[in-house]
């Protein structure tokens, strides 16, 4: 069985063989997990991590709290994996709100950290930036537009 998880557009695939779980590109070996309904603990070598979780079946999500940090993993069906990978690395709104400025045009070459879109949400302005050097492929929003959470705003390549 394969489990595909996505958190902040980063996709992790896990394989389950004979009840043991292995992660692609992950060095973790020989951990012990215990799960008791809402709390979990993972022991690895001499370190132990305790956290809390909630499974949202209708949204296919696992919510985790680990060391005060919050993670929300979307469970992605194998068939949807390609579509999810295609979204990776693009500019996506994390909150619903209004687009104040679009600072790029198709074919613009961008440097890492360059501002792309300024969005207003929760009465604050925040700027979405390029996470790497890239080129703008398509701009899907304009200034003044209302956007939803998780909406694809600018396609990068």
């Amino acid at each position, binding site marked *: 069985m394969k489990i595909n998880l996505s*958190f902040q557009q980063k996709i992790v695939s896990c394989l389950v063989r004979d009840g043991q779980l292995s992660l692609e590109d992950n060095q973790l070996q020989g951990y012990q997990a215990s799960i008791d309904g809402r709390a979990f603990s993972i022991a690895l070598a001499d370190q132990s991590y305790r956290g809390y979780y909630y499974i949202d079946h209708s949204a296919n999500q696992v919510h985790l*709290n680990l060391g005060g940090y919050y993670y929300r993993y979307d469970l992605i069906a194998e068939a949807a994996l390609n579509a999810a990978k295609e979204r990776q690395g693009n500019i996506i709104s994390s909150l619903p709100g209004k687009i104040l400025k679009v600072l790029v045009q198709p074919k613009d070459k961008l440097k890492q950290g360059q501002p792309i879109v300024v969005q207003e949400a929760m009465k604050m302005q925040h700027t979405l930036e390029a996470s790497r050097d890239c080129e703008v492929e398509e701009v899907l929003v304009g200034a003044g537009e209302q956007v939803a959470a998780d909406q694809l705003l600018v396609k990068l390549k």
Partner: protein
Amino acid sequence: MAEQKLKRVLILNRGEIACRIIQTLSRLGITSIAVYQAVEQGALHCRMADEAYLLPEDYLDIDGIIELCQKHAVDAIHPGYGFLSENHVFCRAVEQAGMVFIGPPARAIQKMGDKVEARRLARELGVSLMPGADLAATEEKSQVELEKIAEETGYPVLLKAAAGGGGKAMSIVKSKDLLHTEYLRLREEAESLYHNSALVIEHYLEKARHVEVQVLGNCQAENFVLFDRDCSLQRNNQKVIEEAPALAIEDGVRASMHSDARKLADAVGYTGAGTVEFLYDHQNGRYYFLEMNTRLQVEHTVTEMVTGLDLVEEQLKIAAGQVTRYDNILCGGHAIQARICAETPDLNFTPHAGDIVGYQVPATSGSLRIDSGIARGSAVLPHYDNMMLKLVSHAENRDDAIDKLMVALGETIILGVHTNIPLLRQLLASEEFRNYRHFTRFISTMTLPEPASEKEIAPVAAACIYQNEFQKNGSRLKELTAFDLLGNTES
């Protein structure tokens, strides 16, 4: 002023402060009336109040609110903080409609709300001000004129809107290069935000502490000082950790700060709870008047913890015309508050929104207080401020209060939104804060370590949890009963 009985009080606010005010009203047997917007259906403050009504428009719609209050026979309105709490037009409208505004008189709000006016008053009273000048709305300064003023003020300078507050429409300028551009930009911003392009220019202290004095004016406008608070830890000019009392201030300096605060409050005929804010330069022991906030503040809790007073109860007594005095109030121990906000735990402080699917907080006691506006099942909405709850600890001394708050933050589990809890814990654990060497810009000088090990473990945990679920329920995943981290959060 004749004493009157307030029987029905409307809280023109939401979130933790509305819940906190409702608690005091319930204890005093006063009917609490909440208001909400359509998007807030089922919000905690509405469930806690005796009555709840849909606002015709929003929390700023003066005419609609007054009409709603009259329809439901409201005696008095508590504005909380933010929204219309410092709006003198609203305050007058409430009074003209024959109701009581729980706060200072309109003219006091108006005087202190205008930074130019407030600075003029402070100057007249001999309260020390940061070197600076008023930049009136009517005459736009030329580049040469402005550079001369900034030179006299001394770089770096802080430019801010005269009508502004809460960290909005302000900018720190380090040299003359960007001075005029920023000046023009802020005039525009101030005009669009407040319909008033007047600015204030002040010298900016790079390493200062934010010290503020709590005042409480009785119904005869006789003002009392309820000690001070240190609120130096700020991000984006908004406070995140506050404590009472402020420490490491010489007795004489503190006494003079308190007396200046009282002088300012008396000069505007202040009644009720208010805060006079100062910047304190710990390198030379000098302090400078910043502004007066004419309302109950987010951090009033730490003052309540060290004095044992319920400031909302006192506000109600004062508003009802009861003659109160606060001469013999003592300051006991040390209290610290942490504001828990829905935001990314990195240093961008991007707000976050979502449904709270898990909520667990430590048990409260005389030494740990929790003021919360959320419960499991609540929605943190993108339309409003992202502060969800406050944890407040109280102990004999500062170190113990910090320890207690650290533990409490570790026991606070929120699922559904990102929170600033990791940042708060790092702040409390920092050498600078522990040794009282923090200053207003401290957070902006910090670096946050990536939670490397947690980040590695998180996907493993998620996969294990999912696999476990799969094994238990086979291929047909059934809806589980709702996650119940803590049964008593809604009590």
